[in-house]
């Protein structure tokens, strides 16, 4: 029985068994006929020209390859363009565009329901309502795609790469722009997001909730409406990412909400209105990151504990660290602070005087937001100075006892 199964599997996978179909924009052999004629393991070559229509159902394990100049165009009507209803389906170098917008259904350029092993590589998706939509699927790979949304506003655009209740998904080397969320994960396990560019999306560059054991390396999240939001997840690893120009009244470089056990390392936060906003985050290691010219560097609100902030660089932020609490259950050590005014008599590179990164004024602003109108006034400067000399309101435990005199050599 066991042997039979292996033999069947080998047969199924053997190239001798597979054929190649060509799909032409016109004539008898269209994409639709090719798809229905295809057998398991076949390859369909989508020939140059415009292939109109939507609702292409894929029910067999096939590979679809877009030839140069081939476009599948949904003309913004109908529904989802490719619906993957088989395991092991692959898309290669295919251009898909103009998915119908709907307020009821999540139409996508490629939608995968309840499948394993989908592999989408090198495709270009323009004006997808949703571009790539994975649902209850596993072991999928989304790589090297260019995904360009129509820059509609938040309420009538979908996500670039959307994955819901999936396992073991690799998203790598994609460029996503003009969608609601660039990358959206919900109920994901073991997601890996590497080397993607997610820029100028209406809401979040990356948005994930209830997604445990995921890692995010070397991505760039820039100029998104609200930055990156990471919520209700455990074991999150974010290394070497860049969060840039996420600037606006409701924008964050990185929003951490109810996150336990995270590791943030060597990320670069530049010119975000709030680089990291943490609420209810715990057991977090924030190390070696660079915070440059942000409005707020680290905003740590109530319920955050055991956050360790070490060897980071805080340079030229309006507020380096703010908190709404007088208490601090977090550790700061060995960071570089451009606002540090101490000295280093023994020349060991570490300041001799501890640094309190929280200013009185930032504390005030957290508690009374309208006092922000006093930003950059002489009065506030004097108040901060007085507080620095005689601390009364700022958390005295929130202190870096080993502030660096010089920033660590920068990656980038």
């Amino acid at each position, binding site marked *: 029985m066991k042997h039979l199964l292996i033999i069947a599997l080998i047969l199924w996978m053997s190239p001798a068994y597979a054929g190649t179909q060509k799909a032409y924009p016109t004539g008898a052999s269209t994409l639709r006929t090719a798809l229905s004629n295809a057998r398991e393991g076949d390859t369909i070559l989508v020939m140059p020209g415009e292939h109109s229509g939507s609702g292409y159902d894929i029910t067999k394990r096939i590979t679809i390859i877009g030839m140069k100049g081939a476009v599948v165009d949904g003309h913004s009507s109908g529904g989802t363009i490719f619906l993957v209803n088989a395991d092991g389906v692959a898309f290669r170098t295919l251009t898909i565009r103009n998915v119908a917008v709907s307020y009821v259904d999540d139409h996508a350029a490629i939608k995968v329901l309840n499948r394993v092993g989908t592999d989408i590589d090198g495709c270009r998706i323009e004006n997808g309502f949703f571009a790539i939509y994975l649902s209850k699927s596993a072991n999928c790979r989304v790589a090297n795609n260019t995904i360009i949304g129509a820059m509609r506003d938040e309420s009538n655009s979908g996500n670039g790469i959307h994955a819901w209740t999936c396992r073991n998904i690799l998203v790598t080397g994609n460029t996503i722009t003009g969608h609601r969320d660039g990358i959206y994960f919900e109920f994901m396990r073991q997601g890996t997001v590497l080397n993607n560019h997610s820029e100028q999306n209406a809401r979040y560059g990356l948005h994930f909730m209830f997604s445990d054991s995921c890692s995010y390396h070397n991505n760039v999240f820039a100029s998104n409406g609200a930055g990156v939001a990471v919520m209700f997840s455990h074991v999150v690893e974010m290394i070497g990412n860049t969060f840039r120009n996420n*600037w*606006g*009244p409701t*924008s964050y470089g990185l929003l951490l909400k109810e996150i336990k056990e995270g590791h943030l390392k060597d990320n670069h936060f530049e010119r975000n*209105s709030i680089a990291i906003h943490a609420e209810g985050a715990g057991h977090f290691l924030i190390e070696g990151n660079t915070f440059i*010219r942000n*409005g*707020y560097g680290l905003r740590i609100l109530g319920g955050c504990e055991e956050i360790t902030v070490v060897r980071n660089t805080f340079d*030229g932020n*309006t507020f380096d660290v703010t908190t709404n609490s007088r208490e601090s259950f977090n550790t700061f050590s060995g960071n570089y602070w451009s606002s540090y005014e101490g000295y280093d008599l023994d020349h060991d590179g570490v300041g001799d005087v501890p640094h309190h990164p929280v200013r009185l004024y930032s504390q*005030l602003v957290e*508690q*009374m*937001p*309208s*006092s*922000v*109108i*006093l*930003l*950059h*006034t*002489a*009065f*506030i400067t*004097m*108040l901060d100075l007085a507080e620095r000399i005689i601390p009364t309101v700022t958390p005295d435990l929130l202190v870096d006892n080993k502030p660096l005199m010089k920033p660590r050599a920068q990656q980038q």
Partner: protein
Amino acid sequence: MKTTALLLKYVVRDVMRSRWLALYLIFFAAVTEGLLYFTGGEAKTVVGLMNVVLLLIPLAAAVFGTLHVHHNRDFVELMLTQPVSRSAIYFALYLGVSLPFLIAFVVGIGVPAAIHGVVFNPPILTLLAAGSALTMVFFAIAYLIGVVVQDKAAAMGVAFISWLSFAVLYDGLILALTVIFADYPLEKATIAMVVLNPIDLARIIVMLTFDYAALMGYTGAVFQEFFGAATGIIISSSSLIVWTLLPVFIGRRAFGRKDW
């Protein structure tokens, strides 16, 4: 008018020969060049420059305006014995000292900014406009003080206290009110308080041009909405104009009745 213009020429000539005016210009040029050289023409530069402008212009105006009244006793006495109206003398003196300082400020910041090619950036332009308005406002106030308070030392004291009130204490008052009324929506009240103080008004207008609203959360959004709309622009310019004209006219009245 003709007499005012003629007198203005001599007052300006007198002020132009003052070392303080040259120092004032050089100071702004040095600070601007320094900030542009070390930080580039970004928000940080403008914030640094703005802090200097908001403190120094009202202080310099308070000091030099008040002193100017007293230093020009002789000029006033000479002119009063000529067939010249007191208004002409007053306006010539006020404009004669405020305009050179205004020009020194604009040149001091404008020339280095032009060299670095950032002079037409909206934040720099706004800063120049705001600084010019502050110059006219605080020289007007200083002139009023100089005319009303006879004793030079006392006048300097009053001028300094008024500077301290506008530049520092007023913000303390705003903060106190914010704390006391923390449970109430304060956006409208804070807009009103900001509009009433020319220094705060200048600061907010400059900050809004370089996108600081984003840092200011909901308050920032409310401010941006107010100051971005025609009504807000009209109200804030009116405030600056009233802050200039009111002291000028009260000062002119006091000057008209003053004995020399």
